[in-house]
């Protein structure tokens, strides 16, 4: 059998291809349908984020942070403002913390919906994708109600928020949660437990936990490999210690631990946990308070460097900020979770088929805006 080998062919998946989630190019060496090596080529969406940040003030960085992971802007903002607040050493009001958590978790649901939907699309299921987009739209509607924007919010400011939540937001959110929870079962019925979907994803692209850690893979991808590691629990920031929620991990229900199905399943379960957190946060949130009380007039952090990380839907988003005491950051490095997640692709997709490479890519849930920055 070993000699029965055909001439290898290089297949360029992307930069324009239906399932590369942006402008990613994969140089795939194939032997028939079997993939022998994958080389991701990135940088097509490079926008000089870090260079840009050195020329604008801390406040002005936020719109650009939004645009890095455009699927989960709220979470990115959250990570950034946490870093700057740590550098400045300011405490934010109670209400701001709650609203931030609600927004971040809502965006986590929206992001996971998109991740799951496009994953379904990658393996050929079109209808669940539209169901998930339909529900994501309702979250975006809520965001639009709050801050006027649907995708790039610039809502969280250093020390506060740009606005208080509007009248009726809390009721609308409860309404959405009541509507959303049964929808998860529907997704499970149509996609998650569909035998074809299981066949396509279970046991495919297994990412062992030690490889995941060595490659710096974080977030749902790491949890899919079976490690119970969530910054919201293990390195609590903001007010996440006040909420009662579980951290779902991959258990290999349909295949082995760490396969594509597990990564998918972790996201599905995480949506339920997000709903739980939002419910608690809405219940506990103080109804009045000034959301701009702690917003500093001028942001001039003292000299020093800080590395701060937070849990976004894609993993651990780190900001390394070096301040020289001026209103503009001296150096701002963003450690994006999707960047490391993509780097593991060539490791775990060898020996699978072309269709599997795209399924694995879908299960890693990358956003090219964040990888290329």
């Amino acid at each position, binding site marked *: 059998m070993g000699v029965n080998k055909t001439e290898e*062919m290089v*297949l360029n998946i992307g930069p324009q*291809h*239906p*399932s590369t989630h942006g402008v990613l190019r994969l140089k795939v060496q194939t032997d028939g*349908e079997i993939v022998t090596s994958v080389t991701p080529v990135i940088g097509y969406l490079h926008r000089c984020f870090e260079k840009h940040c050195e020329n604008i003030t801390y406040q002005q960085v936020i719109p650009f942070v939004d645009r890095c992971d455009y699927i989960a802007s709220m979470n990115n903002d959250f990570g950034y403002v946490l870093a700057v607040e740590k550098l400045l050493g300011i405490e934010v009001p109670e209400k701001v913390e709650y609203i931030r958590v609600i927004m971040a978790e809502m965006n986590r649901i929206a992001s996971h919906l998109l991740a799951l939907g496009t994953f*379904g*699309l*990658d*393996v*050929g*299921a*079109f*209808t669940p994708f*539209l*169901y998930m987009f*339909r529900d994501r739209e309702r979250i975006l509607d809520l965001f639009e109600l709050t801050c006027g924007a649907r995708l790039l919010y610039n809502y969280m400011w250093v020390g506060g928020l740009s606005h208080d939540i509007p009248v009726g937001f809390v009721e609308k959110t409860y309404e959405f949660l009541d509507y959303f929870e049964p929808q998860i079962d529907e997704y499970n019925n*149509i*996609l998650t437990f*569909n035998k*074809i*979907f299981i*066949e*396509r994803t279970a046991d495919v692209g297994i990412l062992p936990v030690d490889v995941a850690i060595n490659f710096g893979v974080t977030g749902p991808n790491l949890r899919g490999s079976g490690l119970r590691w969530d910054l919201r629990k293990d390195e609590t920031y903001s007010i996440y210690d006040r909420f009662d929620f579980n951290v779902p991990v991959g258990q290999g229900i349909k295949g082995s631990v760490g396969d594509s199905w597990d990564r998918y399943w972790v996201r599905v379960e995480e949506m339920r946990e997000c709903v739980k957190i939002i419910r608690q946060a809405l219940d506990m949130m103080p109804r009045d308070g000034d959301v701009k009380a702690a917003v500093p007039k001028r942001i001039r952090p003292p000299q020093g460097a800080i590395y701060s990380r937070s849990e976004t839907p894609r993993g651990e988003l780190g900001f390394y900020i070096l301040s020289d005491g001026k209103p503009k950051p001296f150096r701002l490095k963003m450690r994006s979770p999707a960047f490391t997640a993509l780097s593991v692709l060539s490791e775990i997709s060898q020996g699978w*088929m*072309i*269709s*599997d490479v*795209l399924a694995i890519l879908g299960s890693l849930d990358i956003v090219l805006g964040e990888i290329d920055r």
Partner: protein
Amino acid sequence: MTITWLIEWVNDSWLGFLGLPGAFILAVIIAGLAIFGLVAVHAIVAVYVERKVAAFMQDRIGPMGQGPGLHAGKWGLLQTVADALKLLVKEDIIPAAADRKLFVLAPFILFLGAFIAFVALPFSESLVLADFNVGLFYILAVSSFGVIGLILAGWASNNKWSLYGAMRSAAQIISYEIPAAISLIAVILLVGSLNMQAITSAQSGTVWGILPNWFVFQNPFTFMAFFIYFIAGIAETNRTPFDIPEAESELVAGFHTEYSGMRWAFFFLSEYANMFIVCGVAVVVFLGGWQSPIPGLMTGRIWGLFWFMGKVVFLVLIMMWIRWTFPRLRVDQLMNVSWKVLLPLAFFNLFGAGIWSLWLD
């Protein structure tokens, strides 16, 4: 209304001066045009229905238009007509690196394969163009002719995606021909004929008291054979969950990546024609062809056509329903399903059907 009847009719009319050869040519042209019309109309309607069905399943409303003018008619009824017109006037692009002759030829070969299969389909009691005694065999033979078109298209495009699509589809269609044919043999065994009309006639009357005596109800083995045939049929028409040759998210558009305009429309047309053929065969062999579902009620030539078309449309709708629900299989899993599940089941069925017919005797 067979082709012989048509020739005689032409010969007897004022066109009699053409002689028998001329009448033959004219009759063939008339028949061809009629089939082409049917295929085109079916494609236009089916595309519209497919878009609507897909939209409704996805909580959308699909093509819409609420008035004359630029809109495509009320409820978007004229949407596919507009699309067809657009495709007709679109620029015809042939890639520079393509094999020109084969590139041009491929869509027609594919279409031909679907087209000539219509000859043997019995639309009604008397409406069948050529009622040969090997009708079923003929349809099976010519409908796999189209795969040559697919391979040519993939090869001639000189594009890696197209090549992958073509190779996949060749492997796929060849694999699924076998379970499809074997499941049909179970019925042929019971009827003892390959003639389509004979198979249809064998399904008259009732079974189990109330149900029509169709093969799908007649005995458990033919019941299973129907499902095996239908699944294999979906695979033969390259539709989800077996659409790996065109697998949008993997191979961009598979074998027709490089095609545009009318040439692409021919691929589309032949896909829908193929669906019609597969469903037509399923209807004739398993669902009683042009026979009424309530035996004795609403029979006759026109009703026969109505029942036949109705059943075909029903099966086509199920195909659409399946398409818009499922993900796609991987290429090796596809082969697994064919060779390890459908084929053994089909053989088991054949065996069972044989025993059943012996036992009945």
